[in-house]
């Protein structure tokens, strides 16, 4: 359960941006969270309210886009969902792949006033 610390990082980063760019209020925060980033979106949502109290993010919406863990098969180059297909290529059965996405932990976009 390190989501509280992670959320505090997010709030700090957003406030930092807001201060430097004359933003008076943040109304929406959009995150990208990879499936194997080790971070649970539900816990992030839970921590968001606590961490944004009495900040310029208070009352803002939190939108989390879950990024699927995708691997690219090194044998047939097929891109596939690693978790759904238990880490082996559904096209050729290959088990050697390169990770394309799934470890993201990014503040993607803000909506500000």
């Amino acid at each position, binding site marked *: 359960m390190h989501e509280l610390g992670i959320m505090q990082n997010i709030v700090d980063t957003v406030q930092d941006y807001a201060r430097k760019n004359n933003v008076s209020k943040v109304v929406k925060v959009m995150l990208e969270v990879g499936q194997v980033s080790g971070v649970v979106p539900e816990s992030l949502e839970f921590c968001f309210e606590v961490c944004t109290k009495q900040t310029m993010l208070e009352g803002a919406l939190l939108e989390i886009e879950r990024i699927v863990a995708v691997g690219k098969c090194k044998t047939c180059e097929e891109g596939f969902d690693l978790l759904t297909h238990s*880490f082996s290529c559904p096209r050729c059965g290959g088990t050697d792949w390169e990770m394309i996405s799934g470890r993201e932990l990014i503040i993607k976009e803000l909506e500000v*006033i």
Partner: protein
Amino acid sequence: MCETCGCGLTNPNVLLHEHEIETKRVDLEEKVLRHNDRLAERNRGIFEATQILVVNLVSSPGAGKTTLLENTIRALKGEMAIGVIEGDQQTDRDAKRIEATGVDVLQINTIDACHLDAHMIRHALDHFSLLELDLLFIENVGNLICPGAFDLGEDFRVVVLSIPEGEDKPLKYPGVFIGSHLVLVSKVDLLRVLELEVNQFFTNVKKVHPHVPCLSLSAKTGEGMEGWYSWLRDKVKAKKKNLNQPPK
């Protein structure tokens, strides 16, 4: 002025009014852990300059990291200078065990945190005479999820997976295995008792991280420890010559 919302409306009789507030979308594309990553890079610079090989040991609680370290230190301290940073939520039990082996050790108590971060490591480094060290172990907080997200500036992240945890752990907790550079399957002396095959563990590790090197060992019986020692010797030597590939 409307006192509720601060707009310029002057007619005080209009109690309810709507606003078209213009919002602006901003592409931020900022890594959440950018601060940690930056400090980790700084640590990496220190380790580069001092030519210390740094190994971040990660596992579930009770996988045998400390016992592995005790035996490793006793076997290698005659040929290289070793330091240890111990991470636990509470107590200095592990630090005391390491201290008994005669090397320099610092305990970090994270209290609430479930992992070590680059900032804690930076401060811990002040405790050591870095120019005298060849190898620094960081024993992370026992946890198979959270430590995976935090770069400490280490050369290698080594995951210890013990036999009693079961062979399915890499599939259940892929994140930490995907980010590892070496996997040690430990407590292999228990394979017979638990009627398990070490290959089941290797297969599942390779499933989530196809090219990661794996070793099997038992700190208790000494089986397989020589392979781990030669891995460490090679990497320490390569670090002195700046030959190690930096981890991604």
